[in-house]
Every structure is written in structure tokens, then in C-alpha cells.
């Protein structure tokens, strides 16, 4: 982080003000861990970033047909339509879990058929809704080949190191999301020897930090993972699960959660439970969407743009 960045960075209060806008399409540029609001989506996309652009979609819940959205496959189709229409074609897509609603073969089939229309490589991590069949075979067969344990792995793209983690298995009564010792040991080894200047993107289903304990929105041993990531200059943590945009910055780590493509969930504490939130029909698509992430080579910046299906 340079002092120039510091001077141009917003105050903590300004960041918090911007956070409430994130869901409606504010571009975030991350410089050394301090996000700077750059304006609305259209301006940002017009800037034609050079470097790596990738896309995050999350919580498709294909098969969901309850009042909050009777046609989750339909809104996934609209989301993929937005992906295809992007002015800058992303290099690949990550899906942060809950592809299906009930881990049924037809749900995975429908999701795959729809998502493949984007014609992009997709890197998946599972959500708890993807592991509901006996022994969680379906997810592993379709998306987990070559991955370790319950489906964690890492890869590199344009100098950025990507790490997909699984925090939805072996959950303990009364607890939160869980990574477990085996995965944490793998993570420590995966990061060992890497240059601290290498930008890191970590993605997992449940927020890696404690977003709202009362609703189980957090990862029990997430702090251990963050301990291994502390020495890196640029760390971006992308999660799903909570079906709304939430952003937090801690040191060099930026945490960001994506919109769902299926149904919104309430803001913490504003409803009796985190269940699907029924909103007026014309409002639904303003609360669903995709996330565009751009890394510009050289200046260590990651820009995160949330794009609702409808503004």
C-alpha cells in the first residue's frame, strides 16, 4: 500500500456509507486492502480494464420453487444472459455453491445446461445444498474431480492465486461453517513459499468471517485460514450463502459476499429467520445478480462490481 493510496482512500465512515450502496451497483477498487468507490457499474465497465476479469455467480438453488421465487432456473437463465452480454468477456467463472436446491440429478443437470451457455470455464465450490444426497456423490462426480478432500483446490491465473475452500461439511451442533484440520493443513502448505506480493483470491460458500453468528453466517475456524493469509499484500475473500452483498475490510483482506441468482435473504436481524425473503415481484430482480471481478496487472487492484438482474 502506498501513502498516495492512503490519501485518496475514503475514510472508514465513507466506506461504511458505500457499503450500503454496494448492492445497487457500486464499483469497488481495492488498493492495498482499502476499497475506493469508483462510481456506478456502467462507468466502471466503460473503463475497459486490462488484466484479468472473472465472474462470480452464487446460490443458484436450481429446483427451488417456493413463493420467494417460483422459477429459480428462470432467474439463473437471466443471470447467464447478463454474463453473455458483458462488454468485457470474463476469463472464467467461479460458482460459490448451492448450485442445486436439493442435490437432485435433474437439478444439477438443469444448472449445468444453463451455466454452460455462458461458454466459460467454471470453478465450483459446494454449498450445503449440493451435498444432500447419500455420501455427497453427485457433487464429487460432477465438480470435485481432481480436488482434495470434500472438494478444495487451488489454481493460478494471470499471476493471481485462486483457492477454492469447502466449509460446509462435518458441521458441529451449535456451530458455524467448518474447514477442518485436514483442509487447513493443506491451505498452509499451499501458501508456503509464495511471494507475499502475489494477489490471492479465496472463495468458499459460507462467509469465512463471522457475518452474523445468530444465523450461522460464518466459519468456525475461518480465523485460522486468515492467519495463513495475513502476510499477503492483497487478499480477496469471495463468499455466497447469505444471498446479499456484504463487504468488510480487515488489514489487507477484503471480504465480499455475492447476490444469489435465486432468491434474496433478509438483512441480519430484520426477520425471525434467514429463510427465503418474499419481496414484491418487481423488486425480486433488483436483489438477484452476478459479480464481476477485475484484477489490473501491475497496480495490485481488484475491482468488484455487483450487477443486479435489474436496476
Amino acid at each position, binding site marked *: 500500500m502506498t501513502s498516495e493510496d492512503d490519501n485518496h482512500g475514503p475514510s472508514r465512515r465513507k466506506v461504511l456509507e458505500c457499503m450500503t450502496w454496494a448492492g445497487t451497483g457500486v464499483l469497488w477498487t481495492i488498493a492495498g486492502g482499502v476499497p475506493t468507490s469508483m462510481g456506478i457499474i456502467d462507468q466502471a465497465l466503460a473503463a475497459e480494464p486490462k488484466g484479468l476479469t472473472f465472474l462470480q455467480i452464487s446460490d443458484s438453488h436450481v429446483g427451488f420453487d*417456493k*413463493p*420467494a421465487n417460483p422459477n429459480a432456473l428462470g432467474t439463473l437463465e437471466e443471470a447467464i444472459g447478463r454474463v453473455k452480454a458483458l462488454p468485457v468477456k470474463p476469463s472464467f467463472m467461479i460458482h460459490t455453491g448451492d448450485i442445486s*436446491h*436439493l*442435490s437432485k440429478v435433474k437439478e444439477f443437470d438443469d444448472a449445468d445446461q444453463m451455466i454452460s451457455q455462458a461458454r466459460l470455464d467454471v470453478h465450483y465450490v459446494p454449498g*450445503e*445444498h449440493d451435498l*444432500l444426497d447419500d455420501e455427497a456423490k453427485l457433487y464429487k462426480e460432477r465438480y470435485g474431480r481432481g480436488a482434495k478432500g470434500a472438494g478444495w483446490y487451488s489454481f493460478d491465473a494471470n499471476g493471481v492465486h485462486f483457492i477454492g475452500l469447502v466449509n460446509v461439511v462435518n*458441521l*458441529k*451442533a*451449535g*456451530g*458455524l461453517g467448518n474447514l477442518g484440520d485436514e483442509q487447513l493443513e493443506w491451505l498452509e502448505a499451499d501458501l508456503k513459499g509464495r511471494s507475499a506480493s502475489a494477489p490471492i483470491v479465496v472463495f468458499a460458500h459460507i462467509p469465512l468471517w463471522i457475518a452474523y*453468528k*445468530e*444465523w*450461522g453466517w460464518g466459519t468456525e475456524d475461518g480465523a485460522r485460514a486468515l492467519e495463513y493469509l495475513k502476510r499477503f499484500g492483497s487478499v480477496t475473500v469471495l463468499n455466497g450463502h447469505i444471498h446479499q452483498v456484504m463487504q468488510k475490510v480487515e488489514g489487507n483482506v477484503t471480504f465480499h459476499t455475492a447476490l444469489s441468482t435465486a432468491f434474496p435473504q433478509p438483512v441480519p436481524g430484520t426477520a*425471525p*429467520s*434467514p*429463510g*427465503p425473503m418474499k419481496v414484491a415481484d418487481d423488486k425480486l430482480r433488483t436483489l438477484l445478480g452476478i459479480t464481476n471481478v477485475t484484477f489490473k496487472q501491475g497496480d495490485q487492484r481488484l475491482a468488484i462490481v455487483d450487477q443486479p438482474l435489474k436496476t
Partner: protein
Amino acid sequence: MVMEVKFAGHLSKVFAAFLAIAVMVAVAPAAYAEEPSVKIDNFTFNPPSLTVTAGTTVTWKNEDDIPHTVASTTRAFKSKALDTDDSYTFTFTTPGVYEYFCSIHPHMTGKIVVEAKTGSN
């Protein structure tokens, strides 16, 4: 209880009384001895703690728009994922305290306290 029975004289009264008892016996189990149940809604088990006697079958019903499971912390029992309106039953034969949770949303917890049948200990 008033009953219209198309029989004449004394015999009809006896029959009516018999019928009344028969009706009460038939109705009683449904009205007064309902199988204990736990409702799952708003990401909670209701009631969170339920006391039953050994041999009782407990039914859980999911009334949320999101699937849940019923999983014993000691792996004594575990349901499949219960979609909306799905039910799961388990018969508790041995006295003890059975803690359970939703393995998908582990902050959801509950317990079943199983007491020995009266006179059997």
C-alpha cells in the same frame, strides 16, 4: 351425549350407551394421546426440548421453505434432507437425553429427553 338410534325400547338405550363408549374410545387416541411432534420452522426446532417416555415415536415436520435435517450429535439417528412439509420419525426405546441438530444449519439445535416408563424401572 345425544344419539339417535332407530331401535325401540330398552334395547336401544343399552345399544346407544355402548355406541357412545365405542365412539369415545375411537376418538380418544387422536384427540388426547397424539404422537409427540417437533415442528421445524423459522430455522428452529419447536419445542426445542421435548420429554417423552421410552417407546415413544417422535415426528419432526419441516414447515420452512428450506430443507433441514434432524441429526443426533451421537449419530444415534439422522434423517435425510427434509424438504418443505416432509416428515421424519424416530422411536426412542432407551431412556436418556438425545441432543440433535440440523446438519445443514448447525446453529439449529434441540433435544429429546426420554424417561423410563412408569413402573418399568
